[in-house]
């Protein structure tokens, strides 16, 4: 019974794309995640770096929603709501931190903070 429903649902999944759709979503999600990683690695501006982490969070969110739809349950979506909340909290913290740091160094360059090493 559930199998049938599942098949049905999956077949109906956003119509023009057919059964392969999940893969496309996942591809997008992975690409976003990768972009986030690359951005995090390459950009030196603290705010951009933070945005990259957000990108990765949302990549995960996207994947969750896609999977949720695929599995026909709401766990994924629920998860995403929480992720958004956390992301917001992190954003707040990040901003506060960035402001603090900027006041100290008059710069947003992350690599200026390299006193501690070894």
């Amino acid at each position, binding site marked *: 019974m*559930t199998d049938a429903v599942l098949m049905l649902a999956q077949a109906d999944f956003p119509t023009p794309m057919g059964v392969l759709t999940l893969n496309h979503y996942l591809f997008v999600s992975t690409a976003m995640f990768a972009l986030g990683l690359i951005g995090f690695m390459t950009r030196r501006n603290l705010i951009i770096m933070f945005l990259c*982490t957000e990108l990765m969070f949302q990549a*995960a969110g996207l994947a969750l929603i896609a999977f*949720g739809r695929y599995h026909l349950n709401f766990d994924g979506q629920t*998860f995403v709501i929480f*992720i958004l909340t*956390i992301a917001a909290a*992190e954003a707040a913290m990040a901003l506060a931190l960035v402001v603090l740091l900027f006041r100290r160094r008059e710069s947003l360059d992350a690599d200026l903070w390299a*006193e*501690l090493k070894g």
Partner: protein
Amino acid sequence: MTEKLALVWPEVWLFITTCVVMVVGLSPDLRVRRLCGWIAGIGILVAIGAAVPVEHAGGLFPAITPYAKGMIGVVGLLLLPLLAGTVDRDLDAAIAAGKARFDALRANRAEFYAFFLFSLTGLMLTASADDLIWLFLALELTSLPTYIMVTISTRGTRSQEAGVKYFFLGALGAAIFLYGFALMYGATGTTNLAEIAAAFKAQAAAGGINPIGIAGVAVALVGFCFKIAAVPMHMYAADVYQGAASGVSAMLAFVPKAAGFLAIIFICGTVGWDHGPTYDALPAPIYILLWVIAVATMFTGNVLAVRQTSVKRMLAYSSVAHSGYMLVGVIVGPGPGGSFWNNGIAAVLFYLLSYGITNVGTFAVLASIQTDSGDEADEIADIRGLHATRPWLAGAMLLCVLSLLGLPPLVGFFAKVGLFTSAIAAGEIPLVIILGVNSAIAAFYYLRIARSAYLEPADESVSTGPTPVPQRAIAAVLSASLVVLLLVVAQPIVERSVTASGYSPPEVGLAQDGPAQTLTVADE
């Protein structure tokens, strides 16, 4: 609903305490403000009280909460005096001297305690997590406050640098394990850990766990490596520990690590330790992954610690190494259960407790010493000749460091023996040997600390000032005495850890109803 709530009573109590502390901390009266710490302590005690009676919580590790929360509470209690006076001391002094007036906006004391309690709450929530969402939230609740605590722990740029490194890399780590969660969900269609486990089991019975699921578990585990400061996510550790105040470093060495290990145990629990040729190991990819991480972590941590002249960095790297040791226990898994000596999870849980307490002791000694420049002790030269000026602290340092080293008969040794026996019982002889060799490497630097503190005469140039906050010294001595005391009560604690490690994998039959049987993504 209420049954579920019963599980989180400790967290609820902690949360209530947090609220009270936040309010009390805003009082203009210093004496009232000073109550913050006491209230927090009472709150933690109550939380412990609430945690211990909980017998069975369901999920993969139904009995883990009493032990885990008790342990968290105890170490939290030890951390509390250590954290005392981390912030606002200048402010209080200025007020007392009449140079400043109390300003609720500038005072951080209440927030600081509150963040600490929040973090503990998150940690306790991690222990009772039975769902990926819960786990994610709990982990974030554990971490987020610590980012701030690190940043504000001292007024220097170092803690800000530590904060920025910790926060950004932490966010990266969180994103990674979150993505792993997403993949796990994708592979199983559920976020409930037990159900995930059931689904995996069914998949395994049907010919193999879904590769996406495996990838998800792997990615999640790598993400957790940040929490436990394991290779390849260990690099921040030394910088952050050094930059933060010693009290916060001590907390960082325990709270996120405990959270990380609990999460790792839960996530490993979903795939279970019943794979491999003899059905007693993690699935091959996960096993190899953890094996490599464990070995790399042990070596990296110990080796990097050898060259340090900063005690805090040394302890940071040693904390990395200890994560490696504990990963051995995770790799071994719960074994047949029921006894301690062949139970890797119980060994990890006991090790966490022993490590937590010991670790607090070492950092507390550092925190109790003020150098001439007014900073906390950091360089190894700062603690040289401690025995002459403060014998009790020197003794505490000696005991704690030797326990970390694993010198019998201190508790660290028995914790390590647990890992040894369980690994041997699981046939992980190479890991045992590597563990042994690493303990020997660790002796290099632990001995240096012990020697400096306990044996060497004090340098003329380094004169250590009075203990800035007496509570910290108390924390140090208390931890050190617990290192010894724990030996006496080791048996009941170990029994509890054995109970706590009880792993109840789902029956395969249960998983038949699971919705995730037909995921065919990879096949197409």
